[in-house]
């Protein structure tokens, strides 16, 4: 089972919304994963197999040395989540 962490600035709103979208897509694809959301500050010391973030936050995750990042221009774009998540299956 893979661990997916969804990240935004405060870890309150945007990442929770993205998490709901990612969970929906993962369920549809039958992708077995533990999915959670977090704030950018905590993410620095967290571990995950796949990261999900809006493009602006994704840049900062990259700077923090994170790999396998799903980047979203539209945070509710399930089609884009699906295409990118498939590359990790």
């Amino acid at each position: 089972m893979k661990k997916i962490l969804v990240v935004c600035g405060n870890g309150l709103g945007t990442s929770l919304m993205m998490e709901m979208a990612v969970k929906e897509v993962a369920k549809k694809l039958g992708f077995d994963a533990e999915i959670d959301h977090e704030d950018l500050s905590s993410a620095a010391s967290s571990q995950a197999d796949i990261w999900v973030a809006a493009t602006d936050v994704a840049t900062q995750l990259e700077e923090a040395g994170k790999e396998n990042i799903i980047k979203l221009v539209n945070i509710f774009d399930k089609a884009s989540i699906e295409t990118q998540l498939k590359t990790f299956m």
Partner: protein
Amino acid sequence: MVNFFEFMLGLLKEPAIMVGMIAFIGLVAQKADISTILKGTIKTVMGFLILGFGAGALVGALNNFSVVFTEAFGVQGVIPNNEAIVALAQQAFGYEMALIMFFAFVVNIVLARVTPLKYIFLTGHHTMFMSMLVAVILSTAGITGTALIAIGATTVGSLMVLMPAIGQRYTEKVMGTDQLAIGHFSTLSYVVSGYIGGKFGDTSKSTEDIQMPKSLMFLRDTPVAVATTMAIFFSLASVFAGGEFVETVSGGQNWVVFTFMQSLTFAGGVYIVLQGVKMLIAEIVPAFKGISDTLVPGAKPALDCPMVFPVAPNAVLIGFLCSFAAGLVAMGIQGALGWTIIVAGVVPHFFVGGAAGVYGNATGGLRGAVLGSFAQGLCISILPMLLLPVLGGLGLEATTFADFDFGVVGLVLGWMVS
């Protein structure tokens, strides 16, 4: 038997249990399995308790800041921070807040179902903050019991569809789709910025055509941003108040060390509160969305403000800088006139100013982004000051609600009930 009733009544009067109940009902309604229900309910209750721990951590630093600031400048300094004020208010108004929030979700679903305003407001922490604001104002006006919950929930639930609708004209322009809406109680900031951008802007030059240093993006890291601003303003206050005075407040600790430690303590407290809010809403929001998906087909999700950030990243930085500049100008004006000073916070100016920059850019290019975010920056520096008197005892705290809509709703509601 009487003891059992007393126990149940006591349990349900506990606001933490009340929010746990909301999560419990939401999870049961979604037919979640028992382990998920248990886990979700426990985490929600803990989230509420963590709010209290955060309040305990930040209140001391906040009071010290307030004393030093008043000594330094002769006027009161107030930090606009939603998390801090909600954490401080939860002890007295947590129970009312929880009930208003629960029924506001219901009102939102009903309105989205029966009116053409098909918005589902998914920014759970803003629903929570608005419920708290309304609970405080209605309670301060002497309204209690069922009336308080009914008026409160109707108000908050209506705002959850009305505010996204008010912003929709501009949100559509920003996002290029009418399927998403803005669900963030800074709507009027974005409307002001979008309007000014359209009136005085020039769409021939976009913010995205120029080069911006990306180094400022570290301010998205909230604890760092809060600590940095607090340290700067606390240091200024300490210098003006004089080391000798600060050391009477610190109980003898070196004033420079004290200033920095208190700033970081405040930021740490805000971070704890954020974690609490995160845990509190993490189960409730998906349950709310799950239920609304079934009951309101074709609903449009109203989302948190960073949804617009990827559209125009430069506009976010420009919007932040202009909004923050407006905050500093407002501080100067407030100080010169001897009013309460609303300390310009990096966090509200970054998130709200940044998003306002994107709206201003969408309607009026670079010039629209600059003018729009500056104008709303002035608004969010003046409104919290006007809001303080209607908050009763809570208005005497050194922190208050930050966003535009909170200010307007608070003032209108305060005027209506007085």
